[in-house]
C-alpha cells in the first residue's frame, strides 16, 4: 500500500504556525522578489484571488479584501518541511520526499488493519506537533494514491482529509471522477491531445482501446501510468533525489543595468552564490552559463534573451574560478548601450566533489579550496555573505524585495518567537 501525504496550502500554513491570528483568514504568499502570488489559503481562493497574479496588479484588491500578504520565507518553509517528513518517517521508514510539501509513503510488509484510522493518526500528529494540516490518499499504487489524495482534499469534511482506495469499486469510481488534466504526469499539452481523442477522465485513459494511442503518444511512461491507474504497482519509491544537475541564480533588476561594470558586479555575485551552493552540496561544476535579458518594455529588438556557455577543463566549485569565468562570458555577451532587465548564472555538468578527475595539464590553484573553506566557515558563523571578491560591491546586497517577510522563527536564534509573560 502507498500513501501520498500532501500539506494543505503549505506556505500559508507555515506562516500561520507562528502567527495563528491568520488561521481562518485569507493569506497569500508572494514569489521571490515579491513578484506574484504563489500560494493561497482556502479563504483567499474563495475570494477569487488568482494563482500567479502579479502583486502590483492585485495590490489594491488584496488590500480591499483584507488579505494578509507574505513574502516567501524559504528558511521557515524548508525547516518545517523537513520536520513534516521526519514525522512521516516515524510511521514508515519507506518514504520518498516528492516535493517541499508532498511525500509518498509505502507500507509493504507492515500490518495495518485500518488505513483510514492510520491516516488519521498521521494527520493528527503532524497537526499537533507542527500545526500543519495535511491530506492523505492511500492506494495500492503511487499514481492512485495521488488520485486518492485529491479526493481527500476535495471532500475534506466527508473524508476527514483521508481517502483510501482499497476496493475495485472505489478505484473505478475515483478514476471516473478524476479529470484527465488532474492525472499525475499529464500536463497541459497532453491534456489537449487526450481531450481531442475523447479521453476526458483517468478512467478513459485506462480503457483498452486507448492503449495503442497512449503507447504511441507517451511511450513506456504512458503505459506505466496506465498500469498504475489499473492498480498494478510499477513505480516504486525513489531514493533521495540525486544532487541537483544544474544550479541557477537569476534575478530581475530593480531598475535596469546598462553599464559593463554594474553588470560585472551582479554577475560575479550570482557566480559566487552558485559556487557556494555547489560547495554546500559537496559538488563541482564543469560548465558555466551566462544569461542576459534585454528589457522588453524599453526597447524593441529581434531577440531579448542571450546565453553563452563556457566549459572549465577541471571541475570547480571555487568562487574565484566561477566568477572569473562569468566575467569572461560577460565580456563576450555584453553589448554596450543595451538596456538589461535580468541576468543569471547557471552552473551545470555537476559532479560530486569526490569524483573530480584530476587533470594533467590544467588544474585549479589548490589554495582555492582552503580559501573557500575559510570563507564558508566565516559566513556560516556570521550568517552573512561578508567576504566578497574584488569584483563584487560590498555595499550591494541581494536587494530582494521582501516587504512582507516573516521571521526565521526556526532557523535563526535572533528570530525565535517572543512570548509575553
Amino acid at each position, binding site marked *: 500500500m502507498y500513501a501520498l501525504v500532501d500539506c494543505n496550502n503549505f506556505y500559508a500554513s507555515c506562516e500561520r504556525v507562528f502567527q495563528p491570528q491568520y488561521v481562518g483568514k485569507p493569506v497569500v504568499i508572494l514569489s521571490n522578489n515579491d513578484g506574484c502570488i504563489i500560494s493561497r489559503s482556502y479563504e483567499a481562493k474563495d475570494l477569487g484571488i488568482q494563482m500567479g497574479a502579479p502583486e502590483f496588479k492585485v495590490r489594491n484588491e488584496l488590500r480591499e479584501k483584507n488579505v494578509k500578504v507574505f513574502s516567501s520565507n524559504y528558511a521557515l518553509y524548508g525547516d518545517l518541511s523537513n*520536520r513534516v517528513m521526519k514525522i512521516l518517517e516515524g510511521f514508515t521508514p519507506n518514504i520518498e520526499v516528492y516535493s517541499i510539501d508532498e511525500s509518498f509513503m509505502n507500507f509493504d510488509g507492515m500490518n495495518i488493519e485500518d488505513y483510514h484510522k492510520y491516516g488519521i493518526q498521521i494527520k493528527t500528529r503532524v497537526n499537533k506537533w507542527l500545526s500543519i494540516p495535511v491530506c492523505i490518499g492511500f492506494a495500492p499504487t503511487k499514481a492512485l494514491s495521488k488520485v486518492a489524495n485529491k479526493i481527500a482534499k476535495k471532500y475534506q469534511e466527508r473524508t476527514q482529509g483521508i481517502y483510501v482506495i482499497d476496493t475495485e469499486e472505489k478505484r473505478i469510481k475515483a478514476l471516473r471522477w478524476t479529470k484527465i488534466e488532474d492525472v499525475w504526469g499529464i500536463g497541459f499539452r497532453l491534456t489537449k491531445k487526450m481531450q481531442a481523442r475523447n479521453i476526458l477522465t483517468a478512467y478513459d485513459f485506462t480503457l483498452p482501446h486507448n492503449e495503442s494511442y497512449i503507447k504511441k503518444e507517451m511511450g513506456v511512461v504512458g503505459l506505466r501510468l496506465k498500469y498504475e491507474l489499473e492498480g498494478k504497482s510499477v513505480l516504486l519509491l525513489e531514493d533521495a533525489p540525486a544532487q541537483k544537475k544544474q544550479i541557477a541564480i537569476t534575478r530581475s533588476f530593480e531598475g535596469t543595468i546598462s553599464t559593463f561594470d554594474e553588470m560585472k558586479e551582479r554577475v560575479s555575485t550570482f557566480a559566487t552564490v552558485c559556487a557556494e551552493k555547489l560547495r554546500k552540496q559537496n559538488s563541482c561544476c564543469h560548465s558555466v552559463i551566462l544569461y542576459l535579458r534585454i528589457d522588453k518594455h524599453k526597447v524593441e529588438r529581434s531577440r531579448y534573451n542571450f546565453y553563452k556557455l563556457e566549459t572549465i577543463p577541471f571541475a570547480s566549485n571555487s568562487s574565484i574560478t566561477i566568477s572569473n569565468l562569468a566575467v569572461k562570458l560577460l565580456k563576450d555577451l555584453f553589448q554596450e548601450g543595451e538596456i538589461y532587465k535580468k541576468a543569471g548564472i547557471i552552473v551545470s555538468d555537476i559532479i560530486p566533489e569526490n569524483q573530480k578527475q584530476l587533470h594533467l595539464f590544467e588544474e585549479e590553484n589548490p589554495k582555492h579550496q582552503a580559501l573557500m573553506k575559510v570563507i564558508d566557515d566565516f559566513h556560516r558563523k556570521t550568517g552573512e555573505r561578508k567576504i566578497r571578491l574584488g569584483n563584487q560591491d560590498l555595499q550591494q546586497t541581494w536587494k530582494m524585495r521582501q516587504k512582507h517577510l516573516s521571521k526565521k522563527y526556526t532557523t535563526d536564534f535572533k528570530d525565535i518567537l517572543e512570548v509575553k509573560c
Partner: protein
Amino acid sequence: MKKKIQFFLPDLENQIELPYISSGIKAGFPSPAADFDESKISLDNVLVKNKEATFYAKASGNSMIGAGIDNGDILVIDRSLEPQNNKIAICYLDGEFTVKRIKIEGDNVFLMPENKNYKPIQIAEENDLIIWGIVTYVIKKV
C-alpha cells in the same frame, strides 16, 4: 594447481565512520581513557527529547518569575506533549502568545501567573485559546 587469484573490489559506497582516537595509537598499554573518548555532552540531547516537535521562544515580562522564568530567558517548547494540569504552557490567547501555568479545576481552565502582581486568567467561552506547546526547560544567562 587449480588455484585462481580472486580479486575483491573494495566497497567504497558504504562509509563507516570510526571515532578518532586523539591519543594516537602506539604499541604498549593503551590509554585507559581511550574507551571513553566517544561520549561528549550535548545539550541538544538533554534538552530536546523530540527534535521535530521542539521549538524555542524568548520570554518577555515578569509574570512567571516564581516559576523561574525571567525576562529574556530562552524557553524550550515540546509541542508533542499533551497539555496537563500544572504544566507550564505556551498559550495563544486572544491574539497573543503568553506563557503561563495551566490549572484545570473541573470544567474551569485557568492560566496562572507566578507573580503576586499578576492575576490568574480564567478562560471563558469568548476567549480564543490555543495551547501551543509545553515548556520543558528554561535556559537563562546568569
